């Protein structure tokens, strides 16, 4: 694949910021959107917009077909057995909250355990904290190695016969760690627990097969994978979803409503109360088409090469501290530049047209583990090039010069 050609498909990347061509290195926060996704959204609103599963009229049918067609695309994309296993949500956060709010609260009781890791994003940590508090279950953490990765033997020791749910991210949004999900799913199942995967940072960048991973739940967000904001999906094994209660009630999700009792629709609609995010789902479908046309394996190889290239150059900068493992890492690099606070780094980089994230990345417990109040992060995607990495490194050198000079 040719990243330079791909970049041209993203109108937003063709602009100057602060007098420099934009180098967007914040795709782990949200990715940019290709023209095909933007046109799909525009066309949906111009031609097909209508509510779904209600109208008898033609637009209603078109909107329903587009919405349910998007569900089929998601199901095929992650290799779910059927569309009944795909629930549209507002994003990864809402998807995880559904598992923690419905499944975990139904199955956990005092003495049970929920097992997570300290590398989790707040959205895969707080829902479990709350579920543990509500049910009297104990929240346990699989410890991290010095490079931020986890060992299978630690997973084996932390997950016990009392564990009901194991929840962890596939790819860390700070460390770039890629967790051995398939192996941990095997451990969890052997001990009678279910495993819920935060796929926010993995789905955009690598081929995901939920049946091969044998995960019980898998959450994803469209906006990190070239799709619109406000839409994501929860995959869940049908037999689990069938036995779960909805946590949102309203139109769309009901079968029969009486004055004092109601019944729910079948899967997946029983979890989709209210008018769904129709255009968002259609946009997600277009994003999946776009990614599949390029090929997830190609994207992963490109990012690996680019990250290795950038790491090599960044390591040569004096006083830089790079977090996370050097091998087997995803396409993002979290770092600190000597004493210069990451906000200051990000501001100087921005003045050079280079967009990076600075802060705690919604991972306060992980920041404490790293002993850093904040970090800077450059994250790569399919439209980033070696030239982008060069521009980052040049801007970092300038940052050092600027602060060295100003402070000294």
């Amino acid at each position, binding site marked *: 694949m040719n990243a330079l050609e791909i970049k041209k498909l993203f109108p937003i990347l063709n602009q100057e910021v*602060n007098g420099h061509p934009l180098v967007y290195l914040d795709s782990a926060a949200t990715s940019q959107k290709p023209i095909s996704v933007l046109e799909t959204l525009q066309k949906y609103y111009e031609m097909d917009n209508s509510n779904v599963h209600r109208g008898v009229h033609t637009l209603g049918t078109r909107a329903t077909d587009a919405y349910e067609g998007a569900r089929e695309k998601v199901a095929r994309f992650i290799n779910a057995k059927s569309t009944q296993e795909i629930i549209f949500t507002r994003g990864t956060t809402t998807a995880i909250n559904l598992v923690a709010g419905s499944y975990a609260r139904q199955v956990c009781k005092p003495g049970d355990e929920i097992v997570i890791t300290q590398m989790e994003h707040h959205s895969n940590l707080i829902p479990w904290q709350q579920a543990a508090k509500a049910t009297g279950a104990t929240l346990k953490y699989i410890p991290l190695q010095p490079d931020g990765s986890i060992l299978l033997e630690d997973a084996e020791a932390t997950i016990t016969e009392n564990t009901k749910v194991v929840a962890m991210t596939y790819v860390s949004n700070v460390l770039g760690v890629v967790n051995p999900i398939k192996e941990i799913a095997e451990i969890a199942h052997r001990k009678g627990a279910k495993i819920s995967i935060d796929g926010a940072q993995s789905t955009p960048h690598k081929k995901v097969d939920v049946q091969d991973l044998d995960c019980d739940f898998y959450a994803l967000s469209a906006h990190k994978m070239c799709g619109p904001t406000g839409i994501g999906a929860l995959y869940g094994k049908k037999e689990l979803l069938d036995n779960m209660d909805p946590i949102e009630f309203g139109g769309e999700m009901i079968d029969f409503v009486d004055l004092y009792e109601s019944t729910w629709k079948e899967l997946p609609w029983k979890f989709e109360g209210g008018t769904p995010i129709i255009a968002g789902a259609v946009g997600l479908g277009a994003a999946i088409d776009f990614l599949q046309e390029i090929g997830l394996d190609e994207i992963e190889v490109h990012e690996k090469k680019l990250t290795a290239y950038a790491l090599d150059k960044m390591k040569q900068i004096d006083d830089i501290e790079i977090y996370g493992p050097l091998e087997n890492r995803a396409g993002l690099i979290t770092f600190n530049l000597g004493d210069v*606070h*990451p*906000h*200051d780094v990000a*501001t*100087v980089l921005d*003045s050079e047209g280079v967009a990076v994230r*600075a*802060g*705690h990345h919604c991972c*306060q417990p992980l*920041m404490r583990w790293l002993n850093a*109040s*904040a970090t800077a992060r450059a994250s790569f995607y399919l439209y980033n090039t070696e030239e982008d990495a060069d521009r980052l490194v040049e801007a970092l050198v300038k940052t050092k010069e*600027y602060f060295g000079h*100003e*402070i000294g």
Partner: protein
Amino acid sequence: MKLDDLYRRVIMDHYKNPRNRGELNDGSVTVHLNNPTCGDRISLQMEIGNGIVNDAKFTGEGCSISLASASMMTAAIKGKKFDEALKMADDFSNLMKGETPEFEYEDIEALSGVNKFPARIKCATLAWNAMRKGIEEGQEK
């Protein structure tokens, strides 16, 4: 957007050599504030009595702008009456909106450039919000 508008020498001096960094032994008011979006933290202690801020010190973590602002704020409010300190906080808010209020402690005016960097305004205002909160708590006592 010029970096030198943001990082003026006087700001870098306060960042590198913060005034009033530390803890008071008998701080009568302690305020912890953080900026949940970026992780900046300040712990401000003020010794107050008879409606006057007698002393102020801070500890915390943050970028150059937030630490320099805390340094300047503590230097500026020492010996000030509550209403004078609160007026200064109002003036500081206006400074962040692009207005040009004057400050008796002139170093503060160097932070006017932050206005051109909207993402950094919350860094600059953290210490001032802490002071406002501390005085409100002090007034209730």
